[in-house]
C-alpha cells in the first residue's frame, strides 16, 4: 500500500480514528498499531511480513542477549552476528542476482566452469530501510545508548507504517522514547502535518511524475535520439525529479506520523543550495548520511589516522552508500564519485583554496547532476551516450515553458531563504480544522487532475 492511493485513503482515516481512540490505553494501542502496520505492509505481499517479523525477533533476541551480559567480548560477538545476519538478509534479497552475475562473469572469463546459481529473488519493499533501522537498534543497545525495548515496542519501531517502506531512517533512540508514554491528544501538530502531506503530494505527483513523463524517461531511454538542449534539460530534470519524488514521500511520511502524534527526523533541507559536498550530504537524505557516518565511517576509523586513512574511509563509505541504492554498477560509481568529490574538497580546503561562493555552488550542483546521470541510466554505456550527447548541437524539442519553469524554480527556490513556503505553512496552520480538511481535499483533486493516463509510477526509492 502506498500513500497516494484509494486504498490508503480508506486505510488511514480508520487507523487515525482508532489510534487516537485507543491512545490512552497503551496495552491496546500498541497491538492495534502493530496490526495496522502489518496490514499496510502485507498489501505488497503477505509473505514479506514473515521477513519483517523475523528481522524483528532476531534483533530483539540479540539486544536482550547483549543487554544481559557484562562480558564485552560476548556483547561484541552478538552484535557482530546480529549485524551480519541483518546484512545477509539484505544481501540475499537485494544483491544475490547482481553478485551471481558478476561472479559468473569473472569465472567465465577465467575459463572456470563453476557457475554460481542464478536467481532473481523477489525484493521485499523497504527492506533496506528496515534492515538499517534494525541495525541502529541493536548497535545502540551494544553501545549502551539505549536499553532494549519490550518486544512489542521493538516490533512497532521496525514496522510503524509511516516510515516502513521508504524511510526516513528513524533511529531507535529517536522513536523508542515516543513509545514510552501515550501521545498527548491535546498537542497534535495538525497544521504542520496536513501541510507536509499536501506539499509531498504536489512534489510527487504534480512535479516529479510530470518531469519523468515529459522529459526524463524519454531522454534517458534513447539519449541518441536527442541533442544537447534536450539532454541537458533532462539531466537537470532528473535531479529535480528525484528530489521531489523522494522528499515528497518523506514529507508525506513525516506529515502522516505527525497526525498520529509522532515526530520523525528531517530528511532533506534544501540540498540544491549546498556550496560544498560535505554540506550537500548534510542536506540530502540526511537520515542515510548520519547512518553511514555513525555505523560505517566512524567504525572504520573516521578521520582518525591521517589523511590517507580518512580518504580511504570516505571512499569506502560513499561507495557502499552507492551500492545500498541499487545492485548495479551505476549506483556504485555514483557513490564513488561523491566519495572522490568529498576527498577532493578536503584536499583543496587544506591547501586554502576557497573559490567564491557562486563557483562552489556551481561545481557542487553540477557534479551532483552529472553523477545522477550515471545513477539513472540503465547501463554505463547508456550513461556515456547520454553524456556524449550533451555536446551534440541540435534543436530543443522538449523545452516547454512549464517544464523549464518547474526545473528552474525548484532549483532556484532552494538557493534562497525559504520565507514564502514558511509563511504559507504558518497561514495554513492558522486555519480552522474544517478549512484545513477542505484545503487538503482541494489539493488532492488538483493533484489528481495532473495524473496522466500512463498512471502514477512508483516512488523511485521503493526499489532501494
Amino acid at each position, binding site marked *: 500500500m502506498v500513500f497516494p492511493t484509494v486504498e490508503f485513503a480508506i486505510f488511514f482515516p480508520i487507523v487515525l480514528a482508532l489510534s487516537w481512540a485507543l491512545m490512552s490505553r497503551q496495552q491496546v494501542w500498541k497491538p492495534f498499531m502493530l496490526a495496522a502496520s502489518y496490514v499496510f505492509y502485507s498489501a505488497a505481499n503477505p509473505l514479506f511480513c514473515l521477513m519483517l517479523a523475523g528481522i524483528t525477533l532476531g534483533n530483539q533476541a540479540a539486544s536482550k542477549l547483549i543487554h544481559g551480559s557484562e562480558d564485552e567480548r560476548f556483547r561484541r560477538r552478538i552484535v557482530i552476528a546480529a549485524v551480519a545476519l541483518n546484512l545477509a538478509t539484505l544481501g540475499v534479497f537485494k544483491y544475490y*542476482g547482481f553478485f551471481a552475475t558478476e561472479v*559468473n562473469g569473472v569465472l567465465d572469463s577465467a575459463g572456470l566452469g563453476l557457475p554460481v546459481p542464478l536467481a532473481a529473488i*523477489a525484493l521485499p519493499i523497504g527492506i533496506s530501510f528496515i534492515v538499517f533501522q534494525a541495525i541502529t537498534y541493536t548497535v545502540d543497545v551494544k553501545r549502551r545508548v539505549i536499553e532494549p525495548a519490550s518486544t512489542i515496542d521493538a516490533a512497532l519501531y521496525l514496522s510503524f507504517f509511516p516510515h516502513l517502506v521508504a524511510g526516513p531512517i528513524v533511529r531507535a533512540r*529517536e522513536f523508542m522514547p515516543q513509545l514510552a508514554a501515550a501521545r498527548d491528544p491535546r498537542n*497534535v501538530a495538525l497544521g504542520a502535518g496536513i501541510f507536509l502531506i499536501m506539499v509531498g503530494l504536489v512534489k510527487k505527483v504534480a512535479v516529479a511524475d510530470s518531469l519523468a513523463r515529459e522529459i526524463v524517461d524519454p531522454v534517458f531511454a534513447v539519449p541518441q535520439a536527442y541533442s544537447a538542449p534536450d539532454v541537458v534539460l533532462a539531466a537537470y530534470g532528473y535531479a529535480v525529479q528525484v528530489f521531489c519524488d523522494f522528499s515528497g514521500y518523506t514529507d508525506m511520511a513525516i506529515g502522516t506520523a505527525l497526525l498520529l502524534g509522532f*515526530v520523525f527526523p528531517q530528511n532533506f533541507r534544501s540540498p540544491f543550495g549546498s556550496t560544498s559536498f560535505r554540506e550537500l550530504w548534510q542536506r540530502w537524505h540526511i537520515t542515510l548520511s548520519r547512518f553511514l557516518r555513525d555505523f560505517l565511517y566512524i567504525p572504520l576509523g573516521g578521520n582518525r589516522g591521517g589523511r590517507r586513512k580518512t580518504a580511504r574511509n570516505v571512499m569506502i563509505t560513499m561507495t557502499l552508500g552507492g551500492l545500498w541504492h541499487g545492485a548495479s554498477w551505476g549506483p556504485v560509481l555514483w557513490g564513488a564519485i561523491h566519495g572522490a568529490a568529498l576527498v577532493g574538497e578536503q584536499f583543496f580546503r587544506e591547501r586554502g583554496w576557497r573559490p567564491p561562493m557562486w563557483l562552489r555552488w556551481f561545481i557542487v550542483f553540477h557534479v551532483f547532476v552529472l553523477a545522477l546521470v550515471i545513477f539513472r541510466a540503465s547501463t554505463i554505456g547508456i550513461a556515456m551516450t547520454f553524456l556524449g550527447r550533451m555536446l551534440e548541437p541540435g534543436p530543443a524539442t522538449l523545452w516547454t515553458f512549464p517544464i523549464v519553469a518547474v526545473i528552474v524554480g525548484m532549483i532556484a527556490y532552494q538557493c534562497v531563504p525559504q520565507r514564502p513556503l514558511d509563511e504559507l505553512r504558518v497561514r495554513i496552520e492558522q486555519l480552522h480544522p474544517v478549512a484545513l480538511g477542505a484545503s487538503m*481535499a482541494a489539493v488532492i483533486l488538483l493533484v489528481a487532475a495532473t495524473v496522466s*493516463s*500512463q*498512471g502514477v509510477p512508483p516512488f523511485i526509492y521503493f526499489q532501494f
Partner: protein
Amino acid sequence: MTQKDPYILDRPTGRRLRARDALLCVGVAVVLLVLIEGPSIRNTGKEMSSGVERTVVRAVGEPAGWVGDRLPLSDAADSMTGWLSPGDKLTGPGGFQNAAVAAPEPGDGAPAPITPDYFDSAAIGAKSVQLPKLRKLLVTGDSMSQPLDAELARRLADTGGVRTVRDAHLGTAISSTDLVDWGRLSVSHASQTPDAVVMFIGANDAFPMTKPDGKTLNCCGPDWAALYAARVRRMMDTYRRDGAARVYWLTLPYPRGAVRQKIVRTVNAAIAVAAQPLRSQVRVLDMASVFTPGQRFRTAMTVNGKATIVRDPDGIHLNPAGARVAAELVTARLRADFKSIGG
C-alpha cells in the same frame, strides 16, 4: 552549558490542535472526496482484482458512487481542474466500458479476406514482393512493455528514418477500464497512423468483466477468455487499420506463482484465438516459449552462450537483459516485414 541530545526530536513549532480536530479535518477531506469522486471510487472497486482490498474499496465505493451520482460535484470538479490535465484523457469512441463488445469479423462479418501477405514469397518460390518502409513504430502496453520499448527505440534510432513512439500505461489492463480504456486508447493510437505496433500487455489482466447483458465474469474461465479475446481482437483490428499496419502482439512469459500462471495461460490462449482471422497483419510473437518453455517459470536462460538472468525479481517482468532478447526477436520479425531495418 550542556548540549542538547540531537536524537531527541523537537515537535515542529506552530499551532497545536487536539486529536479530535485532526479527525474532523481528515473526516472533512474524506467526505468531500467521497462526494466528488464517489463514482471513480466505485469504478476502481469494481475493477480491482478480487480480495480483501477490493471488498473494502467496494464497501466504500458503492454508497459513495450512489451519492456522487446524485450530485453535480464530479462534473464541476472535472471542469474546474481540467486545465491541469496532461491532455491525454481518452474521450473518443471505441471504449470497452458498458459496450457490447462483439468480436469484430473483418469485412462486416464475412470470412476474413485472404490477402497476399498471408504468403511467404520465398516459401512458394515466388518473386519477393516489395516490402514497405517502416517510418513510425508504436510500442505500447502495460508495464510489460518496459524496458522493451526503450530497447527497441535504441536499436531503431541508429537505423535512421524510424520514429519509435513509446506509450506504456502502467497498472492498466485490457480487462479493466478503470485507469485506461484500451478500446478507446487503441482507436487513439491508430489515428496516429503507425506503420507497425508492438503490443506487450497482460501482467495485470484478471479483472472481472461485464458482459453486455450485465453479467459479471470473473477470471479465468472460458466465458472470461472469450470476452477477453473479443476485446483483444477488436484492438488488433483497430491497430492493423485495414491492412495498412502490422501488429506484433507478444504473448506473456509465464510468471512465478501458480495464481498468476493461470491468468497468463488464459491470456495467452485468448491472444492466439483473437489473432486467428487477422494473421496476415497480426503476428503473435511467442515470448512464452522463448522465456518459459513448457510453461515453467525460470529466472535465467542461456543468451549468447552465457547463463543470464532475464526476469525481474518480481517474477513477472523482463529485466533489461530479457528485454534485449525480446527486442532481438521483434526486430527480426520487423526485418522480415519491412525494408531497411537494422538492429
